[in-house]
């Protein structure tokens, strides 16, 4: 049984097709990345999984429970960290967490609440009103609220947007631990290095469709080998090298190479045509290259 089974989900808002037949299966225990530029449909998809919005067609099951027909069971299995920094200004951190636990139909469990707060460095803010917290602290509470009922499936919608390095490290340490303990984690982020470091498998969305779905390693292999980044002056680059050039808007000319022994012939051909190499860098391909290639050269 998949942790999240998404089958042919479509969602339209009037003429806008936000999701256009998305199918995905996220397995239990996976750390899954959902990437795509703004407006690709990531948050819409997460909202459908969470039951916050309804799809126009298709089905979503969380741990085997349909999010529409069996919504209570499905929601109990899911913890969602929303993208928007929302909070209830009437309550303290501890009250907020106790109430969130109660909404899931669970009895008070202060040990677990204390443990979550300790792991997210919230302990000394436990009795502070939500209004008095900084943005970063509010974000921590949002994460804590999503984890309070120990959901087997955790969905984080851009949890690190605009947060400092310290919180990112705290967060990934804790989420990493939960993932190792068996929780399934689904992450959307605009920080591709974060996705590359954390996610074992990645889906890329564009215009409401899945345009790539593979393990992170396999995706990295799609962009073969490395990139040779050159800053050239003098004569234009010889036409013979055009076939390996990566089309990027940059002051650098980027060439794709499979092995390091391809470098010398490239340099020789540049010398012959009168090019001067002002700067040279050799870069391993990363997820950003994959992303840019798949999204058709459009950076996010």
């Amino acid at each position, binding site marked *: 049984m998949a942790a999240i089974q998404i089958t042919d989900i479509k969602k339209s808002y009037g003429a806008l097709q936000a999701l256009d037949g998305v199918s995905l299966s996220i397995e239990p225990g996976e750390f899954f990345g959902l990437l795509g530029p703004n407006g690709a449909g990531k948050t819409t998809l997460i909202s459908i999984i969470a039951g916050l919005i309804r799809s126009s067609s298709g089905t979503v099951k969380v741990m085997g429970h349909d999010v529409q027909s069996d919504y209570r069971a499905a929601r109990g299995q899911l913890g969602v960290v929303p993208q928007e920094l929302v909070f209830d*200004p*009437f309550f303290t951190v501890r009250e907020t967490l106790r109430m969130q636990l*109660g909404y899931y139909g669970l009895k008070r469990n202060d040990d677990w609440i204390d443990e979550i707060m300790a792991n997210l460095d919230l302990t000394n803010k436990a009795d502070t009103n939500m209004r008095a917290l900084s943005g970063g602290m509010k974000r921590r509470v949002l994460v804590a609220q999503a984890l309070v009922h120990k959901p087997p499936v955790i969905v984080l919608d851009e949890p690190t947007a605009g947060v400092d390095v310290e919180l990112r490290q705290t967060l990934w340490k804790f989420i990493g631990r939960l993932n190792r303990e068996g929780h399934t984690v689904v992450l959307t982020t605009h920080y591709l290095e974060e996705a590359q470091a954390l996610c074992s498998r990645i889906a890329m969305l564009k215009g409401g469709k899945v345009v790539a779905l593979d393990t992170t390693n396999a995706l990295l292999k799609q962009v073969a080998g490395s990139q040779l980044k050159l800053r050239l002056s003098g004569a234009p680059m010889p036409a013979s090298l055009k076939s390996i050039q990566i089309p990027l808007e940059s002051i650098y000319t980027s060439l794709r190479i499979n092995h390091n022994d391809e470098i010398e012939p490239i340099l020789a051909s540049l010398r012959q045509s009168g090019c001067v190499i002002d700067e040279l860098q050799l870069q391993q391909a990363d997820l950003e290259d994959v992303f840019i290639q798949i999204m058709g050269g459009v950076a996010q």
Partner: protein
Amino acid sequence: MIGFQTLFYKEILRFWKVATQTITAPILTALLYLLIFGHVLDRHVQVYAGVQYTAFLIPGLVMMSVLQNSFANASSSLMQSKITGNLVFILLPPLSYWELFGAYVLAAIVRGLVVGLGVFIFTAWFADLSFVAPLWIILFSLLGAAILGTMGLIAGIWAEKFDQLAAFQNFLIMPATFLSGVFYSIHSLPPVWLTVSRFNPFFYMIDGFRYGFFGQSDVEPLHSLLIVLAFFLVLAGVGLNLLKRGYKLRG
């Protein structure tokens, strides 16, 4: 059941934490009405034989406070949660639409009754009140609070901005309460307005409630009770249906 209890507790805690605004202020407002209208009209008006105007007025003011505050509690809680976005904390968990309905309406009833009781305690000193049929007092205040709590829930779901909620409150709830016989008996009205008043469900709530005190009313109390009960069932049906469909709450 724990989900319902928690949401109910949260709704109580929410208004309790701002009690000056949600409890003390409406009690003071009702007290001002009593002092001014009681002072001006006590010697000139007698609605029921043998009942002082101030005594007539007190149950009306109590019920008006119950109704207005029940409405305000459910509607403003939902509206604030929608505007600030924290409604998501209630939409994400596995709360059923029955639990949502029950918690919001019950908390609205509690707020309405707390304010009503407060108004009663502070105004009862100003007149000799009788309690001919206390059961009717309890029944009508409970049902009235439930009706307005449900209306508040519906308005809170429907309204997309505070402006629309204010319109609902000022153009529907306020006229309906003021024109329901809080300050007068509808028998003192010209025939046209008498007929109009008979289509106002608020009139039956206040008339039945007042019967509990004086044993006198414009309409037979059982008749009022049936109308009020039917009105509640219709509204509850509407409210539950909106929650079930996720109307304006789930896209």
